[in-house]
């Protein structure tokens, strides 16, 4: 294994192509940590944004006027403002408002770490788009199906859970997949609040070792691979749960 890494040192000496994360163990550890942080952040955000989308779509159809207004306000705010500024807002502004807890080192630190804030901010951002997507899916369910469920004695929550949502989900899955893929790409923004994800770590490495082109190409390849994997998985899933007769 060491010989494999050592070869990259030779590569640097001979050709000037500097891939420090291969031959330098510190950089290697950083890159691997960064990669897994990106994956963790993506998974957390995927999960929570989907839940926010479902809950938001449910509230949009609620009979309470204020529930509808709040959801509408939430969507318009998160869709019409840059996610980078949203993240700053959450992290610095809201972060300063929350109470502090005493940590092991004996000084007060904020309750939520920057990873948590990044997850919250991105989940809300993607959730806003998800609400619209789920709503369009729910509206695609024929009224007759809904009426039939009502006639069979389902209350609103039950018909939502057992009848409407499964159908809506299958109809809106392509748009949802698109949004989730965008979410994974948007996790790069967490770099601005010092979450040690892939872009942040790469930035540190290329600042230290001045090997910008190599790191850029590495980043590009890693992200395209990660996102490509997700897209492929999503396509498989789409095909598996397709409703015959709907969609292309």
């Amino acid at each position, binding site marked *: 294994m060491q010989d494999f890494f050592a070869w990259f040192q030779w590569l640097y000496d001979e050709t000037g192509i500097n891939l420090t994360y291969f031959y330098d163990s510190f950089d290697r550890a950083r890159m691997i940590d960064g990669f897994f942080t990106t994956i963790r952040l993506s998974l957390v955000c995927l999960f929570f944004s989907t839940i926010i989308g479902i809950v938001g779509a449910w509230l949009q159809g609620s009979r309470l006027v204020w529930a*509808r207004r709040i959801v*509408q*306000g939430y969507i*318009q*705010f998160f*869709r*019409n*403002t*840059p*996610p*980078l*500024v*949203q993240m*700053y*807002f959450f992290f*610095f*502004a809201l972060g*300063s408002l929350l109470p502090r807890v005493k940590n092991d080192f004996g000084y007060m630190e904020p309750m939520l770490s920057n990873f948590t804030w990044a997850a919250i901010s991105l989940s809300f951002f993607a959730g806003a788009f998800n609400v619209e997507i789920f709503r369009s899916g729910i*509206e695609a369910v024929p009224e007759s199906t809904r009426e039939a469920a009502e006639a069979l004695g389902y209350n609103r929550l039950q018909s939502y859970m057992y009848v409407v949502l499964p159908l809506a989900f299958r109809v809106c899955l392509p748009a949802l997949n698109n949004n989730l*893929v965008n979410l994974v*790409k*948007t996790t*790069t*923004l967490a*770099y*601005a609040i010092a979450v040690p994800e892939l*872009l942040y770590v790469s930035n540190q490495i290329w600042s230290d070792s001045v090997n*910008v*082109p190599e790191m*850029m190409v590495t*980043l*590009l390849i890693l*992200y*395209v691979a990660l*996102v*490509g994997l997700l*897209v492929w998985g999503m396509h498989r899933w789409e095909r598996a749960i397709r409703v015959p007769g709907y969609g*292309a």
Partner: protein
Amino acid sequence: MIGGTDLPVLLPAAQRLAERVRREREVGAPIPRLQARHGAWIAVILVFSAGAAGAQAGAGQESVLSIMLKWTPLLFQGFIFNLAISFLAMAGGTVVGALLGVWQISLLPPVRAGSWLVTQFFRNAPWLVLLFFCMFLLPFQVRIFGVVIPLPDWIKATFGLALPVMANVSEIVRGAIQSIPSGQWESAESLAFNRRQTLWQIILPQCVKRMLPPWMNLYAILTMATVLASVVGVSEVMTLTGQVLSAEGGRTDLLIPFYSYILLWFFIYCYPIARLTVRLERHFAVKT
């Protein structure tokens, strides 16, 4: 009787309600009301935080509001940059993306495969990484036929942002073309249109209607994404805000007011576009 009432005092309200019911019937769903108030919420946050910050400010320090007014011209210049980047990236990306989209349904396998590959690649790459790529690897000036053309930073950022726009437009165009019923292609063929004529004179005009809402949605996303250019050092509104905060000595009580301020600007710009998109969507709703 909808909208009818014999109580004179209710007449104006009754007419308003009748109008709304009629519109909702057309659309088929309740129309969300009055969202300009949501922009007002951000303004409320801004004023509240500025006030709170102002209350915290020491005796010798300038008030937050006067600092914000002092720096507004500079920040506004940066904001214009953002808008310029978004226009140019959208224009460039749309033109190339439309071509790519048409090539994706080409009859020649290499053209199809090549344009599919380019589209998928630029769709799967994060916008920030593409931006970094363009900023660092494009030269700062090019020589065409002996004429030196400088490429300032913001042009490179525009190019970097035009790439994902191109890929997304390509997908939008392809999706729109494929949603046209095949009957159109067949009747065009029977009327002796060749493929290129069919595409340009029959199919694409019908597609424009379908493409408009997702295209405008893309523009909104792009406008947000221009803020990414700050990460690569372009002097747009986010970078300038950071520099302004630093010039004010890193005063922490200015952070929220300033960022709410530019949040408000973005909202004021993007919200009307969002409303316009919704109106266009309804106007062009394809009757199936």
